């Protein structure tokens, strides 16, 4: 069955849509910013399980408020019985801090409870982790740029990187808009999105290049459309199986992997979309023709 959807008819309108989304994301990122977790902001995170039916978060909140820990945040974490408490603390050297906290809490709470996880990140480490995360993302974008530049012509390289920026900025914009936490695993997700989105774009670009060599009479506007159609079943199947795997992590992989899998799900959807509707219109914009790719062979 020959597929012949007219993707190229939507290039313009969807590009406007994407630019709007990117601008909106940037507005969120600049004015609202990202909700950094303790990995990047420093501070203390404690995951507490309260062994009672339907524990009251307010009771827990007021118990913590009595301990003079400064501004604290308490949220439910996965199940009704699990909570995550976060607060700032610069001095990590007091070895009895957690023990004292546990003792104070047991005087306040009538229910049994346990600390399931404790994370303390000092200010020095958190700023280093943030720097490493940003460096890693920038480096991966640069590495992709160089790789595509070597393998294809510069027009392709720009198109692929534009698609990557699109995916990364909008994913982070959504995280900012929804105030979702940015931690180390989100950086891992963003890097994987970069790899995945690139992968998707490369498959279509490969076909564009092949078709450019084959047909000298088809304009790039239609040629990209042909290439998208020819690779469409692959695009759909791979995105589907990847999404199935990710949905499985999202629903069954536990609370710790929720943010990671959500970022990846967004990234896969955006990556698939951008390799069709961002990467290809840019080739049209650069007026790529048979000459562009034949030059490469000489």
């Amino acid at each position, binding site marked *: 069955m020959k597929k012949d959807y007219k993707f190229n008819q939507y290039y313009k309108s969807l590009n406007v849509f994407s630019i709007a989304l990117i601008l909106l994301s940037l507005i969120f990122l600049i004015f609202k910013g990202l909700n950094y977790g303790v990995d990047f902001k420093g501070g203390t995170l404690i995951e507490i399980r309260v062994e009672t039916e339907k524990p009251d978060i307010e009771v827990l909140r007021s118990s913590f408020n009595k301990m003079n820990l400064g501004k604290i945040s308490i949220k439910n974490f996965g199940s009704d019985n699990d909570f995550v408490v976060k607060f700032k603390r610069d001095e*990590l*050297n007091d*070895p009895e801090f*957690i*023990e004292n906290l546990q003792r104070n809490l047991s005087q306040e709470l009538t229910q049994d409870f*346990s*600390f*399931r*996880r*404790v*994370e*303390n*990140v000092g200010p*020095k*480490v958190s700023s280093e*982790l943030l720097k*490493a995360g940003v*460096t*890693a993302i920038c*480096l*991966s974008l640069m*590495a*992709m740029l160089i*790789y595509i530049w070597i*393998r294809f012509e510069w027009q392709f390289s720009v198109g692929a990187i534009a698609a990557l920026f699109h995916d990364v900025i909008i994913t982070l914009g959504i995280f900012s808009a929804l105030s979702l936490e940015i931690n*180390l*695993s989100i*950086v*891992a997700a963003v*890097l*994987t999105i*970069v*790899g995945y989105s*690139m*992968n*998707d774009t*490369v*498959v279509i670009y*490969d076909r564009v290049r092949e078709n450019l060599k084959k047909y000298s009479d088809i304009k790039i506007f239609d040629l990209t459309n042909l290439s998208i159609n*020819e690779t469409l*079943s*692959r695009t759909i*199947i*791979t995105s589907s*199986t*990847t999404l*199935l*795997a*990710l*949905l*499985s*992590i999202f*629903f*069954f*992989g*536990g609370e*710790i*992997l929720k943010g*990671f*899998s959500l970022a990846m799900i967004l990234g896969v959807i955006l990556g698939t979309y951008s390799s069709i509707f961002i990467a290809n219109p840019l080739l049209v914009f650069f007026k790529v023709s048979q000459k562009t790719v034949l030059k490469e062979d000489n």
Partner: protein
Amino acid sequence: MVMVSSSNFLDLDLDKQKKIKLGLDLQGGSYLLLELDNEPVIKQKLQSKLLEIKDYFKKNKIKILSLKLDDKLIKLKVSKDDVEKISEIFSDKESTINPYYFQYKAHQLDVKINGDVFNLELSKYGIILIKNASLDQAIEIVRKRVDEVGTNEPNILKRGNDRILLELPGLDNPDRIKSLLGKTADLAFRLESKSSNESFGTEKLKLIETGEELLLSKRVIISGDNLVDASPRMDSLNNQTVVSFTLDRVGSKRFAQATKRNIGTRLAIVLDGQIISAPVIRDVIAGGSGQISGGFTFQSATDLALLLRSGALPAPLNIIEERTVGPDLGQDSINAGILSLIIGFLLVIGFMTLKYRIFGIIANFTLIINLILLISILTLLEATLTLPGIAGIILTVGMAVDANVLIFERIKEETSKEKNNLIAFDNGYSKSKITILDANITTIIAAIILFIFGSGPVKGFSITLCVGILTTLFSVFFIARLLTSIYVKINKNKEIIIK
């Protein structure tokens, strides 16, 4: 290979066989990142350098007009006629006063000459060497202290020039270790001084228990280095817990002499800048052993003895990062990880079977081989499996079919043009090869960068992702190709339909 990976599931307890190590986030445990505060060490080094320079110039009969330490800068003023000679001494590669490190091609001190004043500063590599030496020493002490507490397979690693990474599997309350590592345990026996103009200098220190201030001589009679053993003990006389210690030969001799000469004076036992106790010397202590009292509980006496046995840290250690996961959360994570792996796997397999029928089954079989390979290689590498690592395996399951899909779609296209199935099949493989490589290399690049910059559990993710891509390529180009070629050969004259 199959044997190796099955060993993970069947004989988890067999020590001889290699198995995947579980990360701290899965088995529970504590991760501590400690930073050595080297400022005092560097200051001390500069102080001794100052004395060294003084001695050296005296021996070589060169006159010093002035010599002082200004924060981290040694300022040496000499007469104008000596400037050239001294400058040569400092830049001589054989120089003992300013050693040259051939491996770094640098001197210990950076020398700047300003008229008749030499400004001497520790060079970059001079500082690195001091830090390295103090870090090596600190790691030794940390290891001794951690071993004394008796945790299960601790992992102690150097990180950079001044950090120590400590992984303590199975430890869900690191408080005791933290309090043991938080003390430098710098012990000194010093005498009370009558007047403040003693030749060694004096300083006032506080007695912990009473808060009383004593004027002490800076002269150290014996230090923690002279101790050969220390243990907590019950003093039968007054029913107090004390720490009894044994001194080495040098220490015993000095202790005996000092006690003999100073009967009636108070002897202060100073630990990390505070006086634990300061008994009056009543008699000569000659046997080379003694005891420290100071209102200890049995626990604090045990800890002090442990600290004294393991020796003093060269500088204070600060905890700059701590992550502790309780064992039940670890188990929950394992369960959730395995559940989502199984569900993800079944979803993908179901989808592929529905979509591609016989070719789907080939792809699924390849996927199973791929997973077995992946787990085998992780086992052989003795990689650490973390929760994000499990996520990486699940993601590999989702993305691994991509290569097969690319090939099947290509064969499908080729069969519509080419009547001969064998040729169509061959074309399908060869034409999609480059695309598959291109596409996977991009993911590998991302994974490698993540491996370099990632820390802790995230590193585990990048490892599984990387290995996953390699096993995918292998299983697609060898296993799946073999299976499809067998199928195509059998049906070479029939019309092959890939849905």
